[in-house]
C-alpha cells in the first residue's frame, strides 16, 4: 500500500464534544435489544401465543356451549319469572277446571278420580284416572309439564286441553284393557287397537 493510503486509512482526529452528547442523548431510553436472544425466543413466543390461542378457543367453545344449552331453560325460567303470581294462579285454576271437567264428564258418565287435586304441590302427586275397563291409570303431572315445555307454551291451556281431550277420546273408545298402568302404554294400545279396527 502506498504511504498516502496508509495515512488516509489511519487518519484520526478527535470529534467535537457535542457529538457524544448527542449520541448519549439519542441512546437514552433506548434499550439495546439482543437480536440473537430475540430470535431464539421468537419461536417460544409464537408457540406460547398459539397455545394460549388454543386454550382461549377451547374455553370459549365451552362457555358458548353452556350458554347455548342453558339459554332455552333460562328463557323458560325467565318467562315463568315474568308471569305474575295472579296469572300463575289463574293458570293453575284453569288447569284444575279442565281436569275436573274430564273427571266429571257427564256425557260419557265415566268417573275419573282425582287424587289431592286441590293440593298446591301438585308435582309430587299422581293423577289417577279410570281406564276404559274401570282400571285405575296413574298420570304423572310430569307428563303434563313435559308436554307444556315441549310445546313451549305457557300457560299451557290450549295444549293441555287439546291433548287431554284427544287422550280421553282414545281411552274412552278403547275396549281392550291396558296391560300396563302407564298412560303412554294405554294410549299406545288404544291407538293400535284403533288402527286394527
Amino acid at each position, binding site marked *: 500500500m502506498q504511504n*498516502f493510503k496508509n495515512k*488516509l486509512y489511519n*487518519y484520526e482526529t478527535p470529534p467535537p464534544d*457535542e457529538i*457524544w452528547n448527542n449520541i448519549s442523548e439519542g*441512546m437514552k431510553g433506548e434499550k439495546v435489544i439482543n437480536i440473537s436472544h430475540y430470535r431464539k425466543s421468537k419461536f417460544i413466543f409464537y408457540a406460547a401465543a398459539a397455545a394460549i390461542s388454543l386454550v382461549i378457543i377451547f374455553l370459549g367453545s365451552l362457555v358458548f356451549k353452556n350458554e347455548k344449552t342453558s339459554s332455552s331453560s333460562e328463557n323458560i325460567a325467565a318467562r315463568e319469572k315474568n308471569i305474575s303470581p295472579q296469572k300463575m294462579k289463574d293458570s293453575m285454576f284453569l288447569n284444575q277446571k279442565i281436569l275436573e271437567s274430564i273427571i266429571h264428564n257427564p256425557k260419557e258418565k265415566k268417573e275419573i278420580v282425582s287424587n289431592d287435586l286441590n293440593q298446591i304441590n301438585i308435582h309430587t302427586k299422581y293423577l289417577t284416572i279410570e281406564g276404559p275397563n274401570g282400571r285405575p291409570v296413574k298420570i304423572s303431572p310430569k307428563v303434563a309439564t313435559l308436554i307444556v315445555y315441549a310445546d313451549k307454551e305457557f300457560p299451557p291451556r290450549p295444549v293441555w286441553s287439546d291433548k287431554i281431550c284427544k287422550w280421553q277420546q282414545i281411552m274412552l273408545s278403547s275396549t281392550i284393557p291396558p296391560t300396563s298402568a302407564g298412560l303412554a302404554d294405554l294410549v299406545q294400545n288404544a291407538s293400535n287397537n284403533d288402527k286394527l279396527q
Partner: protein
Amino acid sequence: MTAASNHIPSESDLINGCIKGDAQMQRLLYDQFSAKMYGVCLRYAENTEDANDVMQEGFIKVYKSLSKFRAEGSFEGWIRRIFINTSIEHFRKKVKLYNVTEIQENTIEDSELDVLDSLATKDILNIINKLSPGYKQVFNMHVVEGYSHKEIADLLGITEGTSKSQLARAKGVLKKMIEAEKGNKNRD
C-alpha cells in the same frame, strides 16, 4: 469527558457492557474508536456537518448492532464497516449516482499519485475532499479501503463499469490537482 478508569475492560467486556446498556462502557467504546471513525467520516463526507451527522448515526448503529458481532473479524474492522456503510447511505440520500456509459478512460497509474505520499495527511485529505462526492466515494472505497469494484458496485447500486470509470476520473482529477498544487509551490 474521558472515562477515567484504571481498569481497562477487555473487548468482550466492553461489548457485553454496551449490549446491557451500560453507559460507562458505551463511553469507553466511544473513546476508543471515536477519533478513528471520525477520520473515516471526514474522508467520506462532503463537509464537517455531514461528517458529524454520520459519526452520530454510526455510533448509535454500532451500539444497537453489537449483539450481531460474531467476532469473525476484528472489532475495529466491523465498526469501520458500519461507518462506511452509514457514510454511503448518507451519501446516497443526497446524491444520486447515475450509471455512466462505459468509456475507455485514460488509465492513470497509481504511481502517478505517489506524490501524495510526501504530503501531510491533512493536506492529502484536503485534496481528496476537493473531489466530487461520487469520485470521492469510489476513490476512498477502492484505493483506501481496498474494496473491489464488484463490492463498490453492490454497495453503491451501480455497475462495476461505472465504478471503474468513476475511479479513473477521480484519479485524473487528482492528478490535475496535484500538478496544479506543484505549480503553485514552484511559483512560490
